[in-house]
């Protein structure tokens, strides 16, 4: 028995090494659109929010202007609206020793509303992916790989690797770069699809007291470590109209929160004529860079 167990343990050393080493080599920004966000160390300056922030705020530009290393810890509308799972995850990602950090919180009606059923309960099942992660600062992050049934070791085989025409790439600083070959026709098509999808699935959203509570908690938490900025990223006119239907008093609410916590609120929603999106909802790559530049200037001035 002893012999069997010892031999088995010796035998498994090589596969275990293989499992640990291959993610370090192959799990890059093309491997998965979340993985790299869980592999860095704890962070001092964060960009938070949903996919608008993930694509629309570029940490490297913030770093150039503000001379601080930023990390974009934004996910998607489903995974990271403000709430308990995201709050706990931020808590794990945040370097507790930080004193003068900068925290950019992207806010929009989707981040503080929920599809609330007739019995008053909120559907939070999609957020569990973020909330369940025990380790968010581990490289390689075997927990994420296992939970999401990913297998970076398969990338040793060249034919399994992502195609070169893949348009999305997650940077190590958390920015999700979308290399979109933008054309007016394609934009029109995407906008139409996005509006249809949102009208079908998102227009029943109601203001969620829980989400408001956790947005406030997040602000309060981050204020202990530095300055917090609330930002409403510009989107297309059509999407803005849809948002105004869902939550007409959103800006009033944000202004109240900004006053309550004494944090600046940059409402850029009316800047839509100046910025191009890919689908009405996410800033087009060059415009994301321009917007981050402008945002950096605003933050620099307000400091």
């Amino acid at each position, binding site marked *: *028995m002893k*012999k*069997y167990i010892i031999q*088995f343990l010796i*035998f498994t050393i*090589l*596969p275990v090494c*293989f*499992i640990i080493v291959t993610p370090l080599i192959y799990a890059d920004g093309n491997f998965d659109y979340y993985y790299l966000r869980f592999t860095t160390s704890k962070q001092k300056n964060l960009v938070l929010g949903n996919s608008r922030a993930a694509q629309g705020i570029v940490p490297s530009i913030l770093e150039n202007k503000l001379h601080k290393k930023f990390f974009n810890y934004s996910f998607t509308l489903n995974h990271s609206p403000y709430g308990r799972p995201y709050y706990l995850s931020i808590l794990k990602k945040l370097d507790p020793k930080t004193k003068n950090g900068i925290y950019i919180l992207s806010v929009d009606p989707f981040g503080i509303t929920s599809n609330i059923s007739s019995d008053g309960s909120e559907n939070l099942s999609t957020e569990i992916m973020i909330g369940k992660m025990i380790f968010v600062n581990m490289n390689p992050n075997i927990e994420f790989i*296992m939970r999401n*049934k990913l*297998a970076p*070791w*398969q990338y*040793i*085989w060249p*034919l*399994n690797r992502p195609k070169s025409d893949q348009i999305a790439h997650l940077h190590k600083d958390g920015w999700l770069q979308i290399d979109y070959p933008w054309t007016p026709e394609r934009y029109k098509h995407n906008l139409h699809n996005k509006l249809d999808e949102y009208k079908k699935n998102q227009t029943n959203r109601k203001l969620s007291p829980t989400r408001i509570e956790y947005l406030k908690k997040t602000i309060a938490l981050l204020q202990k470590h530095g300055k917090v900025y609330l930002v409403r990223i510009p989107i297309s006119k059509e999407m803005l109209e849809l948002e105004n239907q869902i939550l007409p008093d959103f800006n009033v609410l944000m202004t109240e929160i900004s006053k309550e916590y004494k944090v600046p609120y940059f409402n850029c929603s009316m800047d839509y004529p100046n910025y191009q999106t890919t689908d009405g909802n996410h800033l087009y790559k060059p415009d994301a860079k321009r917007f981050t530049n402008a945002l950096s200037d605003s933050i620099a001035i307000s400091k």
Partner: protein
Amino acid sequence: MLFNSYEFAIYLPIVFFCYWFVFQRNLKLQNFFILFVSYIFYGWWDWKFLLLIALTSICSWGSGVLVQHYDKEEPGRFNKRKWITAANLILNLGILGFFKYYNFFVVNFIDLFASMGITLEASSLRIILPVGISFYTFQALSYTIDVYRRDIVATKDLVSFLAYVSFFPQLVAGPIERATNLLPQFYKPRTFNYSDAVDGGRQILWGFFKKIVIADNCALVANLVFGNSDNMPGSALIIGAICFAFQIYGDFSGYSDIAIGTGRLFGIKLMRNFNFPYFSRDIAEFWRRWHISLTTWFRDYIYIPLGGSRVSKSKVIRNTLIIFLVSGLWHGANWTFVIWGTFHALLFLPLVIFDRNRKNTNIVAENRFLPTFRELFQMGSTFILVTISWILFRANNLKHAFYYIKGIFSSTIFRDPFCVELIHNKAIVLVGSISILIIVEWLQRKKQHGLEITGIIKYRWIRILIYYTILFMIAVFGAKQATFIYFQF
């Protein structure tokens, strides 16, 4: 819990350690531990399923005890043994029938009346089929029948019996064990056998190769082709059917290998379930080599009681048709399975009628390295027939199966199948891995499993290299974790 899951990778070593190091000294505790971990394994899908397996097991155990109690009773007008056995059979088959066939019969009943112009309204229930219900029900039934026939003495040890029905390696997809083989193994202390455990480990590894590399990759192509068969050229339909043939073999025999290998780690010998069936030279041989535990179950509990082959030809034909029909229905409530069973019966019947069904009982090319052309032709033609039958098995309905087969024999049969991108992308992996499977299993056709290599490969380092190569292939070429096909049965 799936064998090919991270949960099982954690579960198995813990169970192994506790089984041998904590509970080995006390047989009753060890059996109780087996029962406990088996219920955890099964309850991982849905704890509510546990109620059903517990009910089936306890009723079968109780009926066994009662039948044994009335063993000395003289046959009279009211034979208690018979009635108790019948009651238990009705209960078990009733549960199975309800969960598996209720909707099928309701829908067909309504359709039948609708065709006569009578509209019936009956709501079909949303019944979730408990995983592996056909497997453990048949296992419990075999015990009940064996006790009644006095082939086995009923056990009073409830824990051992529950462990026998729920023993986790074979609980959800077999082999369907007989009480005569498995139950006595729970009565006596198990001892750890090093060489058996090592070979069990090899068998598990080979099972994972078959499941993750062969079956799961084939499944990608088979699912795509069967799901879009209307738009596929005939050549792609052929590849889809062949992929499904290897998918179902890799999936099911892979599961059996993992189950048997896992059993051996715990000192428990499970029966063989597959014996390299794609090397069969005729359909009769195929059925002696495919899903052996189910085939022999039907043989022992249906075919032989009906008279088997020692009756008139007309009755032999009837008996053969019955077991294939039941076999089809066992797989599920769908006409495709019924026709699949009938198709096999029609292939089998000529062999029975002309007494040629036991012609190929030896191992193919027994003392030769390669088969003769005749054997190659026989194996090839049997494989083609079996693959055609798999189209019936895999299709969503009979119409789908018909158009699938019709599509194969269209003018598009000569079109380049690589126009289907997935087939093009997977070609190297599929051809390579299936070739490895065929070569290894051909070389090992006299053995219990593909990786039984101790006596063949003398040097340990070569054996270790083989294990690592297989592990590497599983890691690099394995498709994403998918459930096992036979869980639905």
